[in-house]
């Protein structure tokens, strides 16, 4: 069977996959989406007074955009969406452990209450 670049790759042909893989068109659209989010991120620097992220909203808005890019690459480009769930669990084990350990560390150093250092 000859596949063209527009056909999904059958899961039966792929090691560990449980769903058919998307093809090039989906990857290009995903990259365009990621580029658009990056432009938005840079706009927060260029226009810091824009109402959507003015004042205290800047950090939450940046964190949300970062998370969207992070999980888009993880699920589409790294194929977690199509692979066996065990791979998602393996990666999340490390990710969650890292987040918890370092949140505890930052809290120990009172980074959330900078005024308490003085």
């Amino acid at each position, binding site marked *: 069977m000859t596949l063209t670049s527009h056909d999904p790759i059958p899961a039966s042909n792929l090691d560990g996959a449980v769903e058919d893989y998307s093809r090039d068109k989906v990857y290009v659209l995903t990259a365009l989406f990621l580029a658009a989010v990056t432009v938005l991120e840079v706009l927060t620097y260029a226009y810091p007074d824009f109402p959507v992220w003015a004042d205290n909203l800047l950090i939450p808005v940046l964190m949300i955009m970062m998370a969207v890019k*992070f999980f888009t690459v993880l699920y589409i480009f790294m194929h977690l969406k199509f692979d066996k769930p065990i791979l998602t669990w393996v990666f999340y084990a490390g990710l969650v452990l890292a987040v918890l350990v370092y949140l505890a560390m930052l809290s120990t150093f009172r980074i959330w209450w900078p005024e308490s250092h003085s």
Partner: protein
Amino acid sequence: MAEALTARESIKAADAHAPSAHIEHDTNTGISNTKLGMWLFLASECLLFGGLITTYLLYKRPLEGPTPEEIFDIPFTSTSSFVLLMSSLTMVLAVSAIERGDHERLRIWIGATALLGATFIAGQIYEFTVFVREGLGFTTSRFSSAFYTLTGFHGVHVTIGIIMLMSLVLLSLRGKLPEHRSETVEIVGLYWHFVDVVWIFIFAVVYLVP
């Protein structure tokens, strides 16, 4: 020489008759140990980069020397980030190319990925050079040490990725990367995408958060 050519021809002949599908792995998970191992390695890398990013956050306010606001060139770093992001697209297109047996495009996309990665590294070297000229050495402040360690470690990861990509191009040119071995490209791709997601985090937390 003649023997080497014969060996290469025999590998090509064996590959030509190999099934296009991946080899069925007789493991408890049904996934090859190499792929599972790479995901475990990437999970452990979260702890490495988590530690470096946390250290940077703790030391972000320098007691002496230039501050991040004074020294960072956001438009330049944004361009570098965009270049690295696009390298993820070329990498995933390379994986797609080998899975459908298109070796010429595989080499083109892997070459493009390596080139984009090298452009990112060149940008990082230029950025470091400018920072040092402006008085931000590795030992200038706790901020500078944390910053150079974090971004330097990431740069080393990108450089290792480029070496792996060039090895794939060489393997492909020598006919040792047929489509039934596409998992090799996929695993290098996983590493490359992880380096990209780490930079997504660094770009937001180090450069953009005021």
